[in-house]
């Protein structure tokens, strides 16, 4: 160990403890000694084994559902359950976004479902426009004169907006005829909203609970605006019939549901890799630094506001994409979807799954939302307590709230923390307190021996 010897010779004051360690531990835990090379194995996947494991699990899951589905396989899983699973994958994706912004960067945003909903609205506009156009063109086909473009347009507008007593296209529908533009808007609209909102909030150094309240206000304001009939997005009716893809009427829903499952799985996989890549490098270090001590990061010379804005906007875009995949599977989107409570659920999922680790967010979202579907779908058996029968449809929220409190108090690492037990990773949490009087000794190892 020439390198270590050189170190200890140069630093007589620490030499005793280091020598004791080197002599006493004899080859144990070489990772502690090799310096940078040992601390950093090369390669993204080598550094992040969880990514490959996750991709493998996701692939197996998707394949299994496909084989068991009605559309392409044995028909054991119903089409509606395939849709539920596909939607769950989208919720997992938005949970990853929440974990990035909250678990890594420390910004407790309670408004990310606004971006999710906006993504859904953007794709929903095209779906509804195009499908209505096909119906209108169909119905006018038998007219003695071929319809003019204006007639078709008016017909579509009357069909879509008759329910809110209007017959003209509002300005926000200007690009609804174009799939590429609406797909671009899925990314641009949530991203732009996050950019402007974040710039205003972070520049004023609004942090902590005040920022959370501000994001709640944002999503509430957006929901209330969309509830109005003259918002241009059909008020509380929302956009409906989104499960019917224009031009694919002949394809059964059983098959479409599998396609969307694949699309959602692909987006989730890519989102996972992207999130893991973002947090694996120095940017990950910096944003975790911002979470733990914002002022210190600033004095290191990093423009904290820029980093927060980057993460906030990136996660808004991810949320928008997740929403654009979710609502065609749900079939309908209305302003109630972006009510403040939805974003709070998102935080609950991430907290229960374990924030600060990407797979934790995925597990939390999948576990809690599927459980929620089971309980609120009336499938859970009632619990007779003699004098009172617990009906889970009513009591599920109580159970969820209780488990949220319990997880926060007793298992702050969430479900993801269980993986630390399996992999024998231990993070001694002594808040920097010394175990013994010897300042240079290896307290972590002492604690484990």
């Amino acid at each position, binding site marked *: 160990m020439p390198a270590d010897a050189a*170190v200890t010779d140069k630093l007589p*004051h620490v030499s005793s403890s280091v020598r004791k360690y*080197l002599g006493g531990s004899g080859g144990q835990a070489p990772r502690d000694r090799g310096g940078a090379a040992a*601390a950093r194995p090369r390669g993204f996947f080598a550094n992040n084994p969880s990514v490959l494991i996750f991709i493998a699990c996701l692939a197996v899951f998707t394949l299994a559902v496909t084989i068991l589905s009605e559309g392409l396989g044995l028909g054991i899983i119903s089409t509606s359950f395939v849709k539920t699973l596909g939607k769950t994958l989208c919720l997992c994706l938005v949970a990853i976004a929440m974990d990035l912004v909250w678990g890594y960067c420390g910004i407790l945003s309670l408004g990310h479902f606004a971006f999710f909903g906006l993504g859904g609205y953007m794709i929903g506009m095209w779906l509804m426009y195009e499908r209505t156009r096909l119906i209108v063109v169909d119905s006018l086909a038998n007219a003695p004169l071929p319809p003019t473009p204006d007639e078709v347009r008016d017909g579509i507008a009357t069909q879509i907006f008759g329910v809110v007593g209007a017959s003209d296209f509002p300005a926000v529908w200007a690009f609804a005829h174009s799939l590429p533009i609406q797909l671009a808007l899925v990314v641009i609209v949530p991203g732009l909203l996050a950019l402007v909102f974040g710039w205003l909030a972070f520049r004023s150094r609004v942090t902590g609970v005040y920022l959370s309240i501000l994001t709640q206000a944002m999503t509430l304001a957006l929901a209330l605006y969309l509830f109005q009939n003259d918002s241009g997005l059909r008020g509380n009716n929302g956009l409906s019939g989104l499960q019917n893809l224009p031009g694919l009427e002949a394809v059964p829903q059983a098959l479409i549901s599998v396609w969307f499952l694949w699309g959602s799985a692909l987006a989730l996989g890519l989102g996972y890799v992207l999130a893991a890549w973002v947090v694996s490098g120095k*940017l990950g270090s910096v944003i975790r630094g911002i979470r733990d001590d914002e002022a*210190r990061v*600033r004095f290191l010379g990093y423009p904290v506001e820029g980093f927060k804005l980057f993460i906030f906007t990136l996660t808004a875009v991810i949320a928008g994409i997740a929403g654009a995949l979710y609502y065609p599977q749900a079939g309908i989107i209305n302003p109630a979807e972006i009510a403040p409570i939805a974003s709070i659920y998102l935080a609950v999922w991430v907290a229960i799954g374990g924030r600060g680790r990407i797979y934790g967010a995925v597990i939390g979202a999948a576990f809690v939302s599927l459980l929620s579907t089971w309980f609120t779908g009336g499938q859970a058996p009632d619990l007779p307590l003699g004098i009172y029968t617990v009906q889970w449809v009513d009591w599920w929220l109580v159970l969820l709230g209780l488990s949220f409190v319990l997880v926060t108090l007793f298992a702050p690492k969430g479900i993801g923390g269980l993986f630390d037990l399996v992999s024998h990773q231990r993070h001694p949490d002594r808040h920097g307190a*010394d175990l013994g009087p010897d300042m240079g000794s290896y307290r972590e190892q002492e604690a484990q021996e």
Partner: protein
Amino acid sequence: MSTLLEVSGVSVSFDGFRAINNLSFSIGPTELRAIIGPNGAGKTTFMDIVTGKTKPDEGRVLWGDENASLLRMSESRIAQAGVGRKFQRPTVFEDQSVFDNLMMALKKPRNPFKVLVFRPTSEDEDRVVALAEEIGLAAHLSRKSGELSHGQKQWLEIGMLLAQEPRLLLVDEPAAGMTLAEREHTTEILKEAAKTRAVVVVEHDMEFVRRLDCKVTVLHEGSVLAEGSLDHVTKNKDVIDVYLGR
């Protein structure tokens, strides 16, 4: 002698209390300076002003050869310009390894997009290892810094400051909570650093200041009371009255 930092006529009040009162102070590009003073003399506020955390009510803070005003810069711009600060309480990122802490501090582009695509080269890693050796943490690179002892955290923070390659180091009570051996090592690091840059040390501990063996500025009620060698200022009547004679 040219000056690196020139603070002149700076005053700042908090709710009517004058924390800094017409303070003037300057330091050259390679100089070690100790600032002493009783509690409430304005030592920390002085550092807050230089690093941009607090904006003064009046006065000028000029920096470098171009005499740029630090008052118009944000904290992160000032840090990028070359002002490094060490806090009283060691503030390292406890959830991250010693290596990551040092790598984060290393002088590199600070723009979010550059940081996103940044991957350390082997020179960067060698530099981190060299720094870790300098601060006596070479054997602890992969440990979480939250596990380090108090003194080791202080060193890690000094190492992070050195990694930033600042032209001016502001060090707030570096010796607090250190053992005698650790203090000696800290003195060496600071003296070594002052050969290539300006170092300002705020300290309560007279013994530590004596060991630094440098020019001393005594602050009292927000302005400079005396300046000179430690022996010179400790003989000063005013200094004895307000600080030492009690």
